[in-house]
């Protein structure tokens, strides 16, 4: 090997510790599963959490290093990427804690479960930092393939098998279509890295129609991952069929990773370096993004109205929230990206909180059936009040985190002069109160048939209280979170402008 290669690899390793730690955890869990006589969700879960905490710590250390490209410009390490690494680690730690409390999975092997989850998180980390077309595609597959397997993990359950079949077939199709688009991008420019592609696009004269077709092909893959319309069809079935904890996992991790990819990809290839999303080519990208946002949030909210299954309702709710988040994507300026990142933080807290309530009560009631929530306030005041907080936050009631997050997104779209989009989003939020509020109404005002008390495990109680307090906190004193998002968004923009000079 030429010495320059060895030098490059040695230098890059210093930035790669979070992913290295995740890989090592993956192997440790696998080996622990093999050598132990009984697989235990608790022991292996603790190992997984330790690994995730270590990778979080290593990611935090990355803040003190300078931002750079590593591994021959395969990956970027900047604050934008570190933000997402931390988000993924936190959400997965919470999911692992949920798993240790849930009863659904007790019959199946824990080691394989955690291995798949760690592999998926590793893929998400790589996806947030990827700078090279192959890395993007490979990381996307690394996120997706364990997800397909995890969604089918309840081997005795028909719905789980059906969910995983639909997920794997349509997921593979969408990544294959994306690959086809990537191949044309390679052909236009002869380059793999996002910055080289942008240069080649700006220098060459590629007709805008051609670019449109190519980017549309690529958007098929990304749109599938974040479940934006018209690529959302897998979402309700997969959410309903998968184990409850896995549904919670899907609702935050892969979606945030998809958004990281979307922002980095679009900004990396198309930004001209100004404060706004000035794009190469004549096509009206902001309008197309706004249309996707509008359709996604409307479809999500409207179809959620007549759901009777909690999991399907949450699936359509997450589709709607992706629609809201895409409002920040309309102009891809600093304000827009910051609002998306901020909403990711808030959505993590309130969404996972809602799922935790559903998981915690699932041992006593059939928590997928919405009518089972009747009278929950009497049976478990803690669960019902906390779920009320999360549901109201998801709607966007003021003084809760969800309202602040939506406010930032609305402001970003308003300043971009997409007034109709903001009004549509406001109407949608009001509509969403019909189904979020419906859950609240059932819990508090209606009476259920069974009246015995439900006691939650202690970990669930602690976690729920923390998450609910956080939701209030984010609603009343959101400045630290907003600044965190601002800084991460700015770092991305700065690096792109530096690369352009």
């Amino acid at each position, binding site marked *: 090997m030429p010495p320059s290669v060895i030098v490059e690899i040695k230098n890059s390793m210093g930035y790669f510790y979070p992913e290295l730690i995740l890989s090592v955890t993956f192997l440790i869990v696998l080996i622990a599963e093999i050598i132990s006589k009984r697989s235990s969700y608790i022991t292996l879960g603790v190992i997984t959490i330790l690994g995730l905490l270590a990778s979080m710590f290593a990611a935090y250390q990355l803040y003190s290093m300078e931002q750079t490209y590593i591994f021959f410009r395969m990956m970027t390490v900047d604050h934008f990427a570190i933000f997402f690494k931390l988000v993924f680690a936190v959400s997965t730690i919470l999911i692992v804690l949920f798993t240790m409390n849930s009863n659904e999975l007790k019959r199946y092997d824990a080691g394989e479960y955690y291995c798949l989850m760690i592999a998926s998180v590793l893929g998400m980390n790589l996806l947030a930092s990827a700078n090279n*077309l*192959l890395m993007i595609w*490979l990381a996307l*597959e690394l996120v997706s*393939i364990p997800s*397909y*397997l995890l969604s*089918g993990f309840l*081997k005795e359950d*028909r*719905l789980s*098998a*059906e*969910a*995983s*079949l639909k997920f*794997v*077939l349509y997921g*593979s*199709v969408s990544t*294959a*279509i994306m*690959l*086809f688009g*990537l*191949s*044309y991008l*390679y*052909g236009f420019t*002869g380059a*793999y890295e996002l910055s080289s592609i942008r240069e080649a696009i700006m220098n060459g004269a590629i007709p805008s129609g051609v670019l449109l077709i190519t980017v549309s092909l690529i958007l098929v893959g990304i749109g599938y991952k974040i479940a934006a319309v018209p690529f959302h069809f897998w979402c*309700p*079935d997969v959410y*309903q*069929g998968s184990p409850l904890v896995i549904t919670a996992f899907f609702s935050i991790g892969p979606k945030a990773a998809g958004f990281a990819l979307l922002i980095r990809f679009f900004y990396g290839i198309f930004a001209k370096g100004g404060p706004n999303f000035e794009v190469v080519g004549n096509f009206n990208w902001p309008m197309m993004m706004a249309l996707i946002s509008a359709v996604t949030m409307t479809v999500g909210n409207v*179809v959620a109205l*007549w*759901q009777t*299954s909690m999991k*399907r309702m949450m699936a359509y709710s997450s589709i709607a929230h992706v629609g809201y988040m895409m409002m920040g994507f309309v102009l891809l300026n600093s304000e827009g990206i910051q609002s998306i990142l901020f909403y990711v933080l808030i959505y993590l807290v309130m969404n996972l909180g809602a799922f935790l309530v559903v998981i915690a009560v699932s041992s006593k009631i059939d928590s997928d059936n919405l009518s089972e929530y009747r009278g929950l306030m009497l049976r478990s005041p803690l669960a019902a009040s906390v779920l009320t907080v999360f549901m109201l936050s998801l709607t966007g009631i003021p003084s809760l985190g969800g309202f602040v997050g939506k406010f930032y997104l609305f402001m970003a779209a308003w300043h971009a002069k997409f007034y109709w989009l903001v009004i549509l989003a406001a109407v949608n939020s009001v509509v969403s109160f019909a189904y979020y509020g419906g859950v609240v109404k059932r819990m508090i005002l209606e009476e259920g048939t069974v009246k015995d008390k439900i006691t939650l495990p202690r970990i669930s109680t602690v976690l729920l209280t923390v998450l609910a307090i956080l939701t209030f906190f984010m609603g009343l004193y959101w400045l630290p979170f907003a600044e965190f998002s601002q800084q991460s968004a700015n770092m991305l923009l700065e690096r792109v402008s530096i690369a352009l000079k």
Partner: protein
Amino acid sequence: MTLAPGLYHYLIIAALLFCFGLAAVLTRRNGIAVLMGIELILNAANINFVAFSNYVTHALGGHVFVVFVILLAAIEAAVALAIVFAIYRHFHSVEIPQVHEMQG
């Protein structure tokens, strides 16, 4: 376009394969037939990469990408087939319209 093979010939073949693959995915009822459509799409992308590598960039980067695509196609086929077996155990059929219990 001349009769002798050039870049355009390969790109058209790849585009044809892509359309066939997508048609297979959208119209076939059998889960494994959908998988075959996916393989067609992946192969179409492969032809693109190799053709560009040969005519446009004169570098082996395209070939390396294709190695990874072939690898991933094999992985996806294995995973999809494992899931298809699981489906077959439950439903005794791999026809997609019959495997549809969830509504809404």
